[in-house]
């Protein structure tokens, strides 16, 4: 499948429904370790972010019942899960989870997602562009990042996560739409 024929589908409704009542607290340690790991392994990201590393980014997967707030300060990075994004964030980025993951992994092009309206951005557009370019150059592989954090549970996680990613990347053609 090439990047040019990807269509973004939302996460399965049943999965979203099942996630809705779950507490966010158990997710937090994983997010804290994840952002610390990314900061440690991808220092070049902050060179590209420059002054925008001090900004706050709200990331809302529109098909999930929660969102993320990112403050990518090199010395004290912060990634937290929230039910609704706070007011006063510098940037708000929203789109289906598949689009956001594809963007981080470099499998989807940010401008193309914007043209297709899969991605919505509001706020400090300069910070959005800097983050997009920094992440694309950093070659972050989220599966590798999380697997390395989970130790012995990493293998099973990878299988489940890759299956979920494949599901999110189904094309309209494959669905016969």
């Amino acid at each position: 499948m090439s990047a040019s024929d990807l269509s973004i589908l939302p996460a399965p409704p049943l999965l979203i429904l099942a996630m809705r009542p779950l507490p966010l607290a158990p997710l937090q340690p994983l997010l804290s370790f994840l952002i610390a790991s990314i900061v440690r392994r991808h220092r070049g990201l902050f060179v590209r972010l420059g002054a925008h590393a001090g900004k706050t980014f709200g990331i809302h997967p529109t098909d999930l019942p929660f969102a993320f707030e990112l403050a990518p300060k090199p010395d004290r990075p912060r990634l937290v899960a929230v039910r609704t994004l706070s007011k006063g964030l510098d940037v708000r980025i929203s789109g289906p989870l598949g689009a956001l993951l594809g963007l981080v992994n470099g499998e989807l092009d940010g401008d193309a997602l914007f043209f297709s309206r899969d991605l919505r951005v509001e706020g400090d557009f300069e910070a959005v562009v800097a983050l997009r370019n920094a992440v694309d150059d950093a070659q972050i592989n989220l599966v590798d990042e999380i697997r390395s954090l989970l130790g012995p549970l990493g293998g099973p996680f990878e299988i489940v996560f890759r299956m979920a990613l494949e599901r999110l990347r189904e094309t309209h053609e494959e669905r016969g739409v």
Partner: protein
Amino acid sequence: MELVCPAGTPAALKVAVDAGAGAVYCGFNDETNARNFPGLNFSREELIAGIALAHRRGVKVLVAINTFPRAGGMGLWRSAVDDATRAGADALILADVGLLDYAANKHPKQRLHVSVQAAAANADSIRFYVENFGVHRVVLPRVLSVPEIAAVTKECGCETEVFVFGGLCVMAEGRCSLSSYATGCSPNMQGACSPASHVNYRQERGKMVSRLGEFTINSFAKGEPAAYPTLCKGRFATNGALGYIFEDPTSLDAAAMLPGLKEAGVSALKIEGRQRGRAYIEAVVHAFRQALKALDAGRPIETASLSALTEGQTTTVGAYRKTWR
């Protein structure tokens, strides 16, 4: 024909090389190149490493230093010329005659290309660059038909390079002041058309409204493909009608024109998009490498559908096949 591919970051350069680029063009992370976007471009160290990587794979690296130096501020542009030459760039892509003169005199062995930003669109103009600065190639503006390209190529005295994919600019490139008027920042001197610092998107009554400085550029209904927030692709109300008065938001895809461009004597084909991500570069470079293989083998060119990657999600052959609207 050489396939000249964009790279805004070292990661993108590697992707372009892997996907089949014959040459990669890139720029420094400052005002000296016309894609001076936040988080984009190369440091001196990254350029040296990128050139080494590309050369190991037999791929050339062309360095764009294609903005116009400010009065009293030549130092930044001259040091870019010196550093790119020292780094081993296979060619420098320049637009300003003063900088071309500096490069030709200071680095007489360095290969020089005339940037599209110079808007050199006829043989007389191009010969001026050849005769005075010894340039080897000119990147032609995106306003010429294929027969016009053939005529220019025959008479201009150097190689010609044309765009085959990506964003379209139908203005006199390097001389357009629309973005400067709206933002006070010059794309021709500071390197960013519609700089992100002046762009704003917001939701209004169910539509996405794009603004550049104090100007509303466009509003897109739900599900309608979006475009870059440039004034030339704005949708404006004139005489009671709403429409695109300069150009439609669409991208160039000249894959179908490759046989004609080859026959016209064109030496190199350029893909626009240093500001785009790795996914775009991989897909577009791969598609055009396959198209060139088919062309060289005498097979019909099967054009891959790349419209999902393009502005407005539509493509055109632009001025290469001129028709009246």
